[in-house]
């Protein structure tokens, strides 16, 4: 028998959550916040936020990084800054922010199905949806895996469309030797506490476009009033507290990626060979942050549905999650008119499960989680055989 005994309770009864929640050391937090308090600079593009913008640009290999209060607002501002009209092609297999930002920018989301392997938009899935009203494509680097950046860049160039990437999952990820951050017209990252880089909340926009960057820097606050006010400004400022946290996180980022990679490899080893369980593959030649452990469950083979598996895990205080469920095309207000046919999205929404991986998750916890999954599959398959 592998793993822990059946009644082992991970974390002595404390539940295991998904989400990274990487925290700085008490000493470094104290030092950063003492400095902040001494300066009495709490918000309004203070020295820490300016430093963060510089460090992020360097890390992501782009000319500009523009820090903001959160990634959703970053998406809203970027779409408004591009002054678009019409439709934006988006995946429905994504977090609500991707699609809702399109609505906030006064644009119409057009849902596109994703590739079953990469789980992202590709030039192939997007091309048939491009029409006269299309203004932009917004891909999502789901699980930090690049969303066909080269194919989509070519496609958008050919049709004269803007191309954005929701890179909320992709801090520290790369594609063909280039960091995520410099693809398309702009990319948008998240520093939500559950992401690998913890700015409590927070996000940034990266771009190589000087003009777009200047516009966004104006739009993220109401500070400069020089008579050339862009439309749709907002208080989107990242506070010095958020910037302090993100700077501390950046310092640790490579170590955090390595910890995630190690846990990922452990999961991979423990889950190997369980029938009906497919593990998200972070292809070896691409840089990943390994912050998501995602499985798909094939019910006919595994003998149980994804939701039954969730129940089994939850009964052991392992709070695995359905990500994303349901697809955005099935949520209000988008589902009010009609629900487009997105078979791959629906299949992913019905079969995927996200497992805990963070500093709080020990090697022993991973063994417990994996043995719970293995036992669930084995008993379900046995029961199915008996009833047959």
């Amino acid at each position, binding site marked *: 028998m592998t793993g822990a005994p059946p009644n082992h309770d991970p974390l002595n009864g404390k539940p295991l959550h998904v989400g990274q*929640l990487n925290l700085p050391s008490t000493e470094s937090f*104290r030092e950063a916040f003492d400095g902040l308090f001494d300066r009495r600079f709490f918000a309004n593009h203070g020295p820490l936020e300016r430093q963060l913008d510089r460090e992020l640009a360097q890390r992501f290999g782009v000319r500009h990084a523009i820090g903001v209060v959160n990634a959703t607002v970053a998406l809203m501002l970027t779409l408004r800054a591009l002054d678009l009209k019409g439709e934006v092609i988006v995946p429905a297999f994504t977090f609500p922010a991707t699609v809702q930002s399109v*609505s906030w920018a006064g644009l119409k989301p057009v849902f596109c199905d994703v590739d079953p392997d990469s789980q992202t938009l590709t030039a192939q899935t997007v091309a048939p949806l491009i029409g006269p009203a299309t203004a932009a494509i917004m891909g999502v680097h789901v699980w930090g895996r690049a969303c066909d950046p080269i194919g989509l860049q070519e496609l958008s160039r050919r049709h004269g469309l803007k191309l954005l990437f929701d890179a909320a999952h992709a801090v520290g990820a790369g594609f063909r030797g280039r960091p995520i951050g410099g693809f398309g017209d702009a990319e948008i990252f998240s520093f939500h*506490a559950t992401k690998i880089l913890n700015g*409590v909340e927070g996000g940034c926009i990266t771009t190589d476009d000087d003009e777009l960057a200047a516009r966004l820097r104006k739009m993220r606050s109401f500070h400069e009033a020089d008579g050339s006010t862009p*439309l749709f400004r907002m208080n989107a400022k990242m506070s010095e507290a*958020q910037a302090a946290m993100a700077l501390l996180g950046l310092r640790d980022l490579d170590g955090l990626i390595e910890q995630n990679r190690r846990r990922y490899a452990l999961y991979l080893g423990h889950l190997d060979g369980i029938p009906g369980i497919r593990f998200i593959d972070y292809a070896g030649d691409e840089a990943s942050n390994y912050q998501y452990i995602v499985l798909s469950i094939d019910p006919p083979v595994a003998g149980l549905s994804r939701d039954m598996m969730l129940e089994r895990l939850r009964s052991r205080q392992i709070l695995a999650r359905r990500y994303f469920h349901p697809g955005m095309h099935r*949520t*209000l207000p988008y589902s009010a008119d009609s629900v487009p046919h997105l078979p791959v999205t629906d299949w992913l929404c019905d079969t995927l499960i996200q497992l805990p991986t963070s500093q709080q998750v020990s090697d022993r916890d991973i063994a417990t989680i994996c043995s719970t999954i293995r036992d669930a599959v084995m008993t379900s398959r046995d029961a199915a055989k008996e009833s047959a």
Partner: protein
Amino acid sequence: MTTSNGPVPKPGNSPAELALFGGTPLFAEPRATGQLANRAPERFFDLASGAFERRWLTNQGPLVQELEEKLSRLHGTVHCIAFANACFALMLALRSLARPGARKVILPSLTFRGLPHLIRWAGLVPDYCDVDPVYHTLDPDRLAERIDADTAVVLAVDNVSALCDIDAIETVAGAAGVPVLLDSVYGIGGSYGGVPVGARGCASVFSLHATKLINGFEGGYLTTDDDALAQELRRQRNFGFGDDGTVRQLGMNAKLNELHAALALSNLPHLESIVADNARRFDIYRRNFADIPWLSFADYSRSPGNYCLVLLEVLPEAPYSREELIRILRAENALVRPYYSPPLHRSDAALFGPSEARMAELPVTDSVSGRFIQMPVGDTMSAADIAELARLFAFLDEHSRPILDRLRSDNQ
């Protein structure tokens, strides 16, 4: 003689000693126009350490919940809903309250320059209304003239020097069936004849920005007694998620995080002493500036009593223009600003494009927006600093001729 924080004493003999003309600035460190209070940093560190232990840093954590409970008690309302900042609260509330089919939001033009942008984000358009000449808040008679079938919301604003005339505004708006939303960022702590600010209109919005009374880095909140509005806004600030975790409506991320809530909670118990300090500072200003014949202060007789801004009025007989005084003061590291100037209807014609005819309908706003200076306030401003500023003004009064000659010749 110069200390890192204290003012630099000036002999006050020659205009050349003004920082604008190359002299040493009066203040070695800038004196700001915001509160910047941080009264209990150790309490902040305790609260933050609790959040770290819980590993609960955002998504409606216990600190945000505690803050909401305390603030709803402060304002005497059923609901308090915290947001990442006051702008998101206003934007979402405008969108929720807007009368279906109507497009216009009536608001004063003499107010925060972000408001028209928020109105646009909410899918509506601004419609400026003139203000009362004494209190600078929405003039109910002008409001009654402007309100029509296309008015979606009345966005009334409480000023630091005077609360809006809520009874009259509610009467006018009520007769037209238009909801009233209050921007009460500067009304905090006041009361409308016994009812706390925050408890009138459909809802009121407040700020937890560092420059405001309760410093939460950034942050904001909305108070209301309307259960349906509260439920809708709680969903909208969190991507429209319902209690079951599925998306029920369009939303966004407007969540306040736990560290910001921690700082706000650490400062909240000190609200009374912060206000008392402000009142004391304002009193010192009034006493020290009493002898300058061409200066006055805004009429604070209807003020909420928080004195978080000191509004100095430059009277028509002043030898200096308001802008000249601002240039002189800023050079001295007193980071003063013109108060709500230019007014919104003159700030960006391309964006908001009122016609010339409409521009002419805001004469009081035009007049008021040319006269006031926001003076340095808050926790960085000592009594000695105020005395130094008064000395500087006495010097400016005494030597106005040579100073103005030099100032105006330098400009040519």
